[in-house]
């Protein structure tokens, strides 16, 4: 096993590392990473950001958004939690989770923790989820990664993933809500006494336990050349609008609001993060036809700022009686 310390809490860089060591610089032995992130929301590859994330909360709290290359649902990560990654050469098209999760279960046992598999490849303590796991394939590599809730801010997790129930129709993969817990609530010493462990000490013990379970282990240090390539991958594959919003599965959304000038309802068809078509209804008064209003939205990114800019560009300021374009942009997108 080859352990690589990414030295970064930047989620985009860390996913860039996964990509790099799976596709660009590969090893014959299993590569193992153990990393954490500043507050981040990670959506699954085929999830819809609009359905999974409380965008106003996430913006207000400067929480990163990233789209994983693996499947499954949305998770929240922060400096109180850890992520682990195993990268293996794999040419067989067979799904295997246990070989990657078993070393993690064994390592947790060294803290007196009895973690168990649930039916969805998660790890639980007393029925509460402490680790979610997912996989993807890249070239001839299989990437298995998982989260470990150690001392994560559960309140922020709940707030960031609680979404208003607008009418959204899509075929995206939906998240499943689980009861969760932090591992730090369960750490005990050899006498069964509860002990307080710092996240950094937890990491050190987990890494050392997982490496000691391998037949042989070594450490690889990221070189300057690696670092340059990883940063480029982080930017091109993860930290950009196209990867986060442009990869949303197609969805239809209905948003409505009542203003002094009347009620207004928009129905939007959004493909790859952009408004493909729109219709508008209501009892408002406008100097424009409904078709002019909706034409302004065609091709526009589904975001509050982009909608506002599109209305300005199309000369719609003051076009609707007692409903401002700020009001409309705010009601259409978060």
């Amino acid at each position: 096993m080859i352990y690589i310390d990414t030295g970064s809490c930047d989620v985009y860089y860390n996913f860039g590392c996964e990509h790099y060591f799976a596709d660009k610089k590969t090893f014959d032995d299993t590569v193992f990473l153990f990393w954490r992130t500043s507050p981040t929301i990670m959506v699954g590859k085929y999830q819809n950001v609009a359905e999974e994330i409380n965008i106003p909360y996430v913006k207000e709290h400067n929480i990163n958004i990233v789209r994983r290359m693996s499947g499954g649902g949305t998770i929240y990560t922060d400096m109180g939690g850890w992520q682990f990654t195993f990268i293996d050469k794999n040419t067989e098209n067979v799904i295997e989770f246990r070989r990657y999760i078993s070393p993690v279960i064994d390592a947790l046992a060294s803290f007196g923790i009895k973690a168990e598999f649930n039916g969805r490849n998660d790890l639980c303590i007393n029925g509460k989820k402490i680790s979610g796991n997912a996989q993807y394939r890249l070239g001839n590599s299989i990437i298995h990664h998982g989260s470990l809730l150690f001392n994560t801010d559960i309140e922020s997790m709940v707030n960031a993933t609680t979404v208003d129930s607008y009418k959204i129709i899509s075929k995206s993969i939906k998240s499943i809500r689980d009861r969760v817990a932090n591992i730090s609530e369960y750490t005990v010493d050899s006498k069964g006494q509860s002990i307080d462990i710092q996240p950094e000490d937890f990491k050190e013990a987990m890494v050392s336990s997982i490496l000691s379970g391998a037949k042989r282990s070594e450490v690889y240090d990221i070189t300057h050349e690696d670092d340059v390539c990883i940063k480029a991958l982080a930017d091109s594959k993860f930290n950009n609008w196209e990867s986060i919003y442009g990869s949303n599965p197609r969805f239809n959304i209905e948003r409505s609001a009542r203003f002094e000038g009347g009620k207004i309802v928009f129905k939007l068809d959004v493909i790859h993060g952009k408004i493909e078509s729109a219709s508008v209804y209501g009892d408002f008064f406008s100097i424009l036809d409904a078709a002019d209003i909706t034409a302004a939205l065609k091709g526009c990114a589904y975001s509050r700022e982009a909608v506002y800019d599109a209305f300005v560009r199309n000369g719609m300021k003051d076009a609707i009686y007692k409903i401002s374009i700020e009001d409309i942009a705010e009601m259409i997108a978060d």
Partner: protein
Amino acid sequence: MEKKLLMPKLRPEMEKAVLCAWLKEVGDEIKSGEPVYEIETDKVVTQVESSYDGVLKSKLYEEGDTVDVLLPVALVEEKQEAV
């Protein structure tokens, strides 16, 4: 000759998967070993490759559809070897 590309069974318990994305369009040439569509099951995203050289003739499902394992997902018109 028309060939079928199936929804693979990637582990014994797998019964179905979501067809998440088409990586080829109808009419595109496909080489054996090239990925044609991407699927998600049990939180695993994987690409399904063609076993044939040919042309993608039809897509039998839309993105987002759930498909049972071993059902045909795409039809490929296999390229005939010159005799």
